[in-house]
């Protein structure tokens, strides 16, 4: 296997059910999935098909009932919460539908945050944050608060925040759902460009057909199964 084909995350025989009162809802039923380094993988499907559940499992913020998850070479099933948190901190990035920036922090502080909690020295953080903001075209907005930015700009900040620590995998849940079509195109281009530049894979849950047409691979989900 070449370096470019190396898997970033593998899901083997994943089952996940949710319990709502007396109802048992099977969210995932035997998912096998491999995400390769640098690829843009789109997950599509109707609401309730299991897209977000796969994202949560790949992002180590949820655990499967059955099956195995391997992040790089790390088997994550046996990790405790603290170990999973540290793995998220070091290896994963997140882009949310509604941006989820911290409103009291400036743009630069939001982008800096993942490096700060990872204990990266301040001079290196400053350089990396500035480079990342330049890359997403928001260098001049470094000291603005998120509420002073447009939706597209906010999502670019979120992408910069996700990529600044050079993660292996970025989890993006409906990243263009809150944006107009033009801005959505720009954000998608940016994700492609920055993902390839940083060598990060993207797993994107989306309903947007324009977005899926520009991804490297598209997987459709229905009733918790890959089609």
């Amino acid at each position, binding site marked *: 296997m070449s370096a470019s084909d190396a898997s970033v995350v593998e899901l083997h025989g994943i089952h996940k059910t949710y319990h709502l009162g007396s109802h048992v809802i099977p969210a995932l039923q035997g998912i096998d999935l491999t995400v390769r380094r640098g690829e843009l993988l789109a997950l599509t499907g109707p609401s309730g098909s299991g897209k977000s559940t796969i994202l*949560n499992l790949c*992002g180590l*913020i*949820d655990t499967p009932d059955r099956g195995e998850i391997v992040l790089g070479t790390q088997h994550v099933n046996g990790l405790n919460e*603290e170990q999973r*948190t*540290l793995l*998220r*901190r*070091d290896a*994963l990035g*997140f882009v*949310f539908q509604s941006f*989820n920036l*911290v*409103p*009291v*922090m400036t743009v630069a*502080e939001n982008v800096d*945050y*993942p490096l*700060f*909690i*990872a204990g990266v020295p301040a001079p290196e953080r400053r350089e990396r944050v500035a480079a990342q903001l330049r890359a997403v075209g928001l260098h001049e907005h470094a000291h603005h608060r998120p509420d002073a930015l447009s939706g597209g700009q906010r999502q670019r900040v979120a992408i910069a*925040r996700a990529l600044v620590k050079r993660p292996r995998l970025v989890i993006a849940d409906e990243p263009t759902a809150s944006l107009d079509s033009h801005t959505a195109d720009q954000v998608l281009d940016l994700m492609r460009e920055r993902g390839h530049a940083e060598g990060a894979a993207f797993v994107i849950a989306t309903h947007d057909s324009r977005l899926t047409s520009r991804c490297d691979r598209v997987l459709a989900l229905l009733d918790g199964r890959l089609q």
Partner: protein
Amino acid sequence: MNWMWLKFAVQNTLRNRRRSLVTVSIAALGTAGILLGGGFALSTYQGLSEMAARSTGHLIVAQPAQFDRDEDTPLQHGLDNAAELREKLLADPEVRQVLPRVSFSGLISNGDKSTVMMATGIDPDSEFAVKGPFLSVTAGEVLSSGTTAAEVMLGEGLARSLKAQPGSSLTLLASTTDGALNALDVQVKGVFSTGVPDMDARFVYTDIATAQKLLNTQRVSSLGVFLARMEMTEGAQQRVAGANPTLKVQTWLDQAFFYKGVKDLYNRIFGAMGLIIGVIVVFVVTNAMSMAIIERTREIGTLRALGTLPNQLLRTLGLEGMVLGGVGALAGAAVAVGVTVFLLVVPFEMPPPPGQTKGYPLIITFDALMYLATMISMVSLTVLTSTWVARKTVNMPVVDALAHT
């Protein structure tokens, strides 16, 4: 601690300024209330302890039986060698004065009417020199040493009862140390008020020679030892007791029953007040932080997803409590200092306490240790409360926190 956490905490407290202002105000009022109440209690303790020590002396030296047993006859347990002992005590460099006392009771009569008196024989010049204006003279003059005439000062109520005034002649009647009844004519030199009507109705001061003549003795009841400073009391007690093993040495505190009663009462009152203030602060901070954390549950989920450990979030939320409590404590301390200084510049007279006829100035003591302890307590309380409120949310599953609306 990294300053970024503190900066983040300060920024978070400014999100909802009105809510933070209410929390800070409650913490400030609580701190000011505790400091002002505590300062008032301290000034009261200080005033009462000085009054007690000035009344009895910092140390009281007497025969052990004088403290422990009742007398069958006047001065049965008195000191024989008072003059010699006085010289010995005065040799101690920390001793400022030694005053002999003759305490006795008997009757006082104007010829037509007799009434019970509680009398004390004193060395007038030394007593007034050491104690200053400890009596409020309402008529006539204070006693003086070296006069040949037998003179007395009467409490205001007693003088009124006997229709006596300066210059009036009265007769003192008391049992001598032999058990015989003796009488002595005296002249009223002055009338005084202690501020306590019950005492003014019975108290008589006379010079020590007159008292000894009436009781037919050379003994004194006790020696009051006055020191340069209150803090010297304990050390001086040990030295004097060690040098006079046959005698007993008590401190002013052993005889300050009023002081101990007031202190016990005030400690309970202000302790309860502090507790109530603490509970109010806990409720207010709990409410403010609960609302802040509920509003930020999704943000907390985001920060957890990004790799923030629960303890790191608890720390920053605790810092928010510290900022609120710290600003409140500082503001409260500033208010307390302001009120303390204001009362020094513009004196305020308190009404007379129950059983007394005179008011007293309202003074608030500034005690750096009390300020420090109160401020640290206030900050600790807000930090602990914030951390306790936040612990559930920062530990909730990240998926649930992100889904919070």
